């Protein structure tokens, strides 16, 4: 069999769902090529009134907090030394690494001059939130890549670099968490410049802090969703007991967020607040469905410890609330009265769907070929032999 035939037969063995994802990713790829062939104006519904659309609102502003699981869990497990959550770390790191790589990709598509990305280093502007986020996202993607390389090296039996990575593990986790804190909050700072544009319901000076807190609790919820999905679809053990630890932390962050948000709304925001019925409705949905309901749900022990309800509470509610919040800030809340309404073009939508599909697809493929579900604690396996290729660990690909 040639290599090509091997690849084809391998893909044939994939589950139908994964093959559909491959089609979606390919479609996204072609749409991305179309963007460069025909230009931003022709392929998107962006214009001078809406310089930022779906690609910034979803692929950057929303995707970054959705990929926050890695830094949050890394800090909980390694810094606070809650070892029993260890099994969740690797999948979270894979999700984080994929998420950030795709954020970079989405950002490059949206830039007018992507080939000049390096200008950020050549002509830095310390007063620009965008400069700060660009720097952080690039360095965090590198950190996530290094963290992600551990299972790759294990798979191929590169023991020497693996040892090196193990000694770096804790510093990388600390560095990653510090960098993530900066850019998760600075994405909120973006919109502090949009004074008189972003509606008072969302515009307040502590928006960056609110962005960081919501990234933390969403990161934990993403880990829960991921663990439940992996249990259901990738034949991994049920981690409900472990997740119960996480679900005890989440309501704290939800509660702090709620208090700060109310404080900001009534003491830090300018008036008027509730003058636009559509925005008031969006705001109410975001707060009630995304914060208050999950807060009450997570206070109940029965919900915290039940696998099915965890998925429902965390997944459907907190994630929905976060996505709505980020769209409210970066899109809906910026629309002025009597302004034309933006909706994404077909090509914009295909690209974003492709990016979401790519995330799920790559996760499933990595899970199939690399040991990301094997449980490694920090100081286990330190006695492995030195040298490259000295042993070939037999890694049985997990069924998909």
């Amino acid at each position: 069999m040639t290599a090509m035939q091997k690849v084809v037969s391998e893909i044939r063995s994939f589950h139908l769902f994964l093959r559909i994802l491959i089609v979606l990713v390919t479609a996204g790829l072609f749409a991305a090529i179309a963007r460069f062939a025909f230009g931003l104006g022709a392929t998107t519904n962006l214009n001078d009134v809406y310089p930022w659309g779906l690609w910034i609102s979803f692929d950057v502003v929303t995707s970054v907090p959705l990929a926050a699981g890695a830094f949050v869990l890394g800090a909980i497990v390694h810094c606070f030394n809650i070892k029993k959550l260890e099994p969740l770390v690797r999948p979270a790191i894979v999700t984080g690494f994929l998420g950030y790589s795709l954020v970079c990709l989405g950002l490059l598509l949206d830039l007018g001059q992507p080939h000049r990305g390096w200008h950020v280093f050549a002509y830095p502007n310390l007063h620009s939130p965008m400069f700060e986020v660009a720097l952080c996202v690039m360095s965090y993607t590198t950190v996530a890549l290094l963290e992600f390389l551990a299972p790759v090296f294990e798979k191929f039996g590169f023991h020497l670099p693996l040892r090196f990575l193990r000694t770096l593990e804790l510093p990388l986790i600390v560095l990653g968490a510090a960098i993530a804190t900066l850019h998760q909050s600075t994405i909120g700072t973006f919109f502090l410049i949009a004074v008189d544009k972003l509606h008072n319901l969302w515009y307040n000076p502590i928006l960056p802090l609110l962005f960081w807190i919501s990234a933390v609790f969403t990161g934990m919820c993403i880990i829960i969703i991921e663990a439940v999905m992996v249990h259901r679809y990738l034949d991994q053990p049920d981690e409900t007991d472990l997740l119960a630890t996480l679900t005890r932390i989440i309501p704290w962050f939800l509660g702090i967020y709620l208090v700060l948000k109310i404080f900001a709304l009534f003491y830090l925001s300018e008036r008027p607040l509730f003058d636009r019925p559509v925005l008031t409705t969006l705001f109410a949905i975001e707060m009630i469905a995304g914060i208050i309901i999950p807060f009450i749900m997570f206070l109940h022990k029965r919900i915290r410890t039940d696998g099915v309800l965890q998925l429902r509470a965390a997944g459907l509610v907190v994630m929905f609330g976060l996505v709505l919040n980020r769209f409210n800030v970066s899109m809906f809340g910026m629309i002025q009265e009597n302004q034309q309404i933006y909706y994404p073009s077909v090509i914009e939508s295909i690209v974003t769907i492709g990016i979401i599909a790519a995330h799920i697809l790559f996760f499933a493929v990595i899970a199939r070929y690399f040991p990301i579900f094997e449980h490694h604690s920090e100081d286990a396996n330190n006695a492995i032999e030195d040298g490259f290729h000295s042993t070939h660990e037999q890694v049985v690909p997990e069924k998909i």
Partner: protein
Amino acid sequence: MSTERDLSNQRTFLIDLTKCTGCRACQVACKQWNQMEAEKTSFFEGEGYQNPATLSEYTLTTIQFKDYFHEGKNEFSFYKAMCMHCNDPACVSVCPVSAFIKTPEGPVIYDTKRCIGCRFCMIACPFGIPRYQWSKALPLVVKCNGCYSRVKEGLKPACAKACPTAIEYGGRQEMIDEAKRRLAVNPGRYMNRIYGLEEAGGTSVLYLSAVPFDDIGFRNVTRRPLPSRTWAALRFVPTAFITMGGSLAFISWLTHRKEKIRREKEMKEVERASQKGDRS
């Protein structure tokens, strides 16, 4: 980030809308001097006698018409739309690659060779001035450069040079004094307001008008310089980084030390137990 500079000599436009006839000589002069491509337009595309409809990637300044209702009568009015060349510009502060520069002479200029095309300047600008080359595969931002190449040589900008009636050009303090003089001499003729004196922390374009600015399409803009809003958050970045990194490092050291001590204790107990076992 606002540094205390002497702004009194910054080149500034004083546009007296009561003297503007809407002839659009400024529009034509701007196109010619900046060699902007022609734009296909149709009449009545915008509001009133508006043509072209708005600023665009081909048009850096327009006479902006406005039909409105005043004391039971249909009225129309117009003003010259252009970059306001703020004293503390939002575009300069948000650009990740420093493509915008506030020149010492006054104009805010834009460097096409640096721009990466992120469009943050368009989100940031309180007056909604920067436009984008939507027609291009690798687009750039387009904005009035205040005819910096002319101003540097001591000339007036093209639009100010071409204007037969309404535009004065000179040092900022001089222009403010002139505007105040006109308001004092002819109080019945003007609204008692100089638009641009305090808007967005002050701009290098000042307007006088006979009708309320809000009515004819001027945006109501905050008085506080916009960059101070983001800087209020950004200045905490180094602190946040060090606090977060430091406290996490400290916590990990603490928890790992705790575990090490616990383990050593266990080992000792095991040893002791085995020694006891040996003895008995």
